[in-house]
């Protein structure tokens, strides 16, 4: 989007949600049809920054998520572009019937920026962890699902969401993410993975806060183990970048997915679907929350506990690199 570029200078000392709030304010200036809604989480999700700037165009509906998404749908129906923010758990579960029927089914131009996703609100306990949303939202027809790696990528995702017609779900974390991108100029496109490290020994496919961890893991693998790991930032879970996955199978034949989400239904599953349909053999590992309700703690501690941080990825890569999956190099007999 011309004119709206953000750099590390904009991102330093800002949480991911604050960057979102800022971008939304900038967009609000340019696009009068943008309105914003929250359910008593204006401050926490930072959508309230838009509310302070454009009080007439901001609607806090109180703690009523079903009403929240219903109202957003009605606003989209009369031509506005609603941005809606509450926690991921209350978006993908408490208000899901409304997200499903009022927004996705009717293919409405509503942008949902769900915060405090994954284990990022770790200390709040499992009622506030959200490790199911990607699975749930991925199965909503019409809806695109994006997991930005950091604040800068969130800026890109939010702008791209405005430019793309139809329902979009963007999940971001609570608090500060490790800064991964220095500026917004790296060619972000919905549905197109970004290769953030080159390599042909194996591919690590990551999304969200796991992208930074994967890139760090690749550095260790390269210097310590002489393993050249390709790292893909799969920021769009739906539509997933099939071509990038197929190229990874062809060229590296070993894939690890890593996500701050249940291993059921998210990035790992999306990747596995592409793999299975391709008929190509591939050594494959999925890192994530192992289909359990997560323990309580700091985000970084939990990422370590569930082995979706640098250490966990390095360990999984070392295992995977030794795994036999095919006796010969003949691809013709594999389908």
């Amino acid at each position, binding site marked *: 989007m011309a004119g709206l570029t953000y750099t590390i200078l904009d991102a330093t000392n800002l949480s991911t949600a604050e960057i979102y709030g800022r971008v939304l304010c900038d967009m609000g200036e340019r696009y009068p049809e943008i309105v914003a809604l929250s359910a008593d989480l204006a401050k926490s999700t930072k959508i309230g920054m838009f509310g302070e700037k454009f009080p007439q165009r901001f*609607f806090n509906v109180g703690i009523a998520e079903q*009403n929240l998404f219903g109202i957003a749908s*009605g606003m989209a*129906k009369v031509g506005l572009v609603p941005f809606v923010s509450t926690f991921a758990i209350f978006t993908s579960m408490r208000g899901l019937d409304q997200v499903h029927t009022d927004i996705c089914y009717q293919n409405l131009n509503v942008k949902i920026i769900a915060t405090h996703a994954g284990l990022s609100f770790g200390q709040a306990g499992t009622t506030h962890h959200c490790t199911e949303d990607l699975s749930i939202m991925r199965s909503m027809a019409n809806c695109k699902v994006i997991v930005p790696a950091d604040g800068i990528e969130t800026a890109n995702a939010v702008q791209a969401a405005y430019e793309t017609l139809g329902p979009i779900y963007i999940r971001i974390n609570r608090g500060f993410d490790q800064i991964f991108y220095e500026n917004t100029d790296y060619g972000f496109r919905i549905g197109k993975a970004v290769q953030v490290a080159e390599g042909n020994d194996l591919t690590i496919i990551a999304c969200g806060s796991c992208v930074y961890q994967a890139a760090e893991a690749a550095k260790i693998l390269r210097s310590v183990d002489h393993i050249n790991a390709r790292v893909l930032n799969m920021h769009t879970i739906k539509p997933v970048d099939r071509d990038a996955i197929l190229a990874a199978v062809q060229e590296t034949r070993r894939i690890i997915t890593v996500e701050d989400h249940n291993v059921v239904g998210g990035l790992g599953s999306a990747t596995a679907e592409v793999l299975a349909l391709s008929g190509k053999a591939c050594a494959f590992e999925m890192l994530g929350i192992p289909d359990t309700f997560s323990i309580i703690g700091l985000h970084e501690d939990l990422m370590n506990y569930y082995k979706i941080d640098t250490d966990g990825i390095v360990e999984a890569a070392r295992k995977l690199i030794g795994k036999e999956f095919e006796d010969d190099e003949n691809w013709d007999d594999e389908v």
Partner: protein
Amino acid sequence: MPLDQQELRFLEDKANQLRHLCVDTVAWAGAGHIGGSMSAMDIMVLLYYKYLHIDPQNPGWEDRDRFVLSKGHAGIGYAPILADKGFIQRELLTEYNHTGSSLGIHLDSLRVPGVDASTGSLGHGLSIALGMALGIRLLKKSCKVYCLLGDGECNEGQVWEAAMAISHFKPCNIITIVDRNGLMIDGATEEVMKLEPFKQKWEAFGFIVKEVDGHNFKQLAEAVEYSISENSVPVVIIADTIKGCGIDFIENDYRWHYGGLDSDKISEAHKSLTAYYEKRIKGE
């Protein structure tokens, strides 16, 4: 403007004609939500033939009034109106519920011209209508949003979330009507899940309540006009209705929430409707 004699007669005739068409549609469909369609028919007829500013030639007209049928299962009562108005072809009704038809039990706003919201999951409509109303106000347009709810539907917490928010945001361009037929699927509302004191509930949420006979066009019209002209306090019209209204063997029997009619029952239903119409015309 209140109804004059000629308008009243026109509405009576229209409602009668559409009740018959609804029964035919149930026959073509094999079965349908006949009870709740009959209770809502007069309300929908009044809105569609007296109040809604809409253009069947241009269903997407931006400045049109909106209608949200929150009790979406009454689609089989709503579709005949859309056909009569010219939004859809009348022949389509003969395919109601058939595989591949654009008309199913709950009408789809993307497939059926004239339908402003896809409903079916109860409790959603008032929130959607509120969103439309707030959007319309923000865009400085003068169109209105009409929303029709079922009474059983008011068990849903979301209805009260929306009511609270209407009181809070005061959009003033939303007309809320509840079809208070007293029945839901499993029985009487007061037995399945007590709604009374219903009026006081709405009042407690900040509404002015107009209780009217939902099969009396004059009373309904007065309440709608009151609601349109009241610009500071939200209004809800509680329309006292009869589930299955006009079909004697269906009236007030919760078991007729949804059902099929064989050819004997179809002619019985038509006969009953004709008798009902004649009674209404005579003012009985």
